């Protein structure tokens, strides 16, 4: 069926699962306000089977959706099973003869013994224990705050200076490498998270200001930086706009 193939294509091109559910609902002519879970899960599984047949890779999330739908379906069926056990108006339980011919049972109600759930008042000793816990929590909070304050003990640095510094570094490296491009990895003195971030941030400013161009072939590949001859004057400089912002360094 043409529409079914549509769904398979949607799945293969990783549409959101919600879109696919809507598509199946319309394909199977289901009432969107009262969805027949049995039909919906069957429709979904049919499309998964088709994908397998066509040798598409099935994204993991669709397997999870199929599991969820099947679970919902089986829960629904269980509810129907239990509904077969009904209460008569006098409160007695009747197990009806179901369509597949189970026996009929009429049982009297099972009266449970009354179980009392006594509680008692709090003892002073418990109150003291609670205070101990509350005060300990307070102490921990104070220590945490003190630590947090310790972390704010920082030196400030002018971002303008950082940007200018990186720009000079690019210049120097271009001279040294005698090429037109500088790999980003050469700009980072020590390949550590903080250092990478501290280099990357001013680079973004330079790029935005039009002073450099950047090129990256694939995700996580090397970034090649090229100096632009004429900075695009039309573009307002972010670094100028945020002249007063200081970079905070530990």
């Amino acid at each position, binding site marked *: 069926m043409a529409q079914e193939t549509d769904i398979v294509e949607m799945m293969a091109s990783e549409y959101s699962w919600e879109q696919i559910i809507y598509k199946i609902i319309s394909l199977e002519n289901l009432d969107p306000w009262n969805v027949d879970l049995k039909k919906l899960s069957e429709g979904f599984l049919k499309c998964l089977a088709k994908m397998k047949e066509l040798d598409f890779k099935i994204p993991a999330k669709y397997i999870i959706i199929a599991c969820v739908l099947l679970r919902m379906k*089986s829960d629904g*069926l*269980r509810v*129907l*099973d*239990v509904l*077969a*056990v009904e209460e008569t108006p006098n409160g*007695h*339980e009747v*197990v009806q003869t179901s369509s597949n011919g*189970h026996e009929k*049972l*009429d*049982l*009297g*109600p*099972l*009266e*449970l*013994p*009354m*179980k*009392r*759930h*006594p509680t*008692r008042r709090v003892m002073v000793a418990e109150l003291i224990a609670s205070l101990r816990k509350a005060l300990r929590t307070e102490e921990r909070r104070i220590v945490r705050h003190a630590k947090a304050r310790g972390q704010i003990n920082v030196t400030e640095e002018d971002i303008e200076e950082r940007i200018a510094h990186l720009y000079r570094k690019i210049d120097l490296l271009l001279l040294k490498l005698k090429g037109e491009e500088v790999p980003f990895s050469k700009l980072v003195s020590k390949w550590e998270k903080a250092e990478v971030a501290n280099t990357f941030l001013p680079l973004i400013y330079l790029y935005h200001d039009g002073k450099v161009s950047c090129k990256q072939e694939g995700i996580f590949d090397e970034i090649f930086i090229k100096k632009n001859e004429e900075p695009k004057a039309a573009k307002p400089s972010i670094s100028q706009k945020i002249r007063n912002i200081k970079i905070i360094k530990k």
Partner: protein
Amino acid sequence: MEHKKLLEAALFVSPSPMMLNDLGKLLGVNSLGYVKELLGELQKQYAETGLEIVNTPEGYQMQVKPEFLGNVGHLNPHSDLSEGCKRTLALVLYKEPAKQSEIIKLQGNKAYNYIKDLTRRGLIKAEREGHTKILKVTQELESYFGVPKEKIKEQLKVEGN
């Protein structure tokens, strides 16, 4: 008499019946005969009230006199068995020994959970017989209901037959 008051307090506050020797320990006395005597006196005292102190196989317990249960039972909303569990238990009792498959047929797949619950609570037990599981009620059930299982069965079979 402080000892008697302490016994009352213990029986009132304890969520489960208390054995004679635990009550003795509580009072700090060695003579269980003495504790039993005090309990006997208390039982007499309570004859005049809406409560009673009974000696069950699991120990002494303070409870509402059965004749008032109908009037006050609704005040305690906690039923410690779900409606589904109650049904499974009734079916197992009625059909005992009952095939698990038969209960599932009657109650649907949900009954697997009820059977698990009831087994965990020690009210029923499952025995394997070839490919099938046979469900039976336990001794624990009798102490839960406080009456012999035959009596509970009778209650069910009035309607069943």
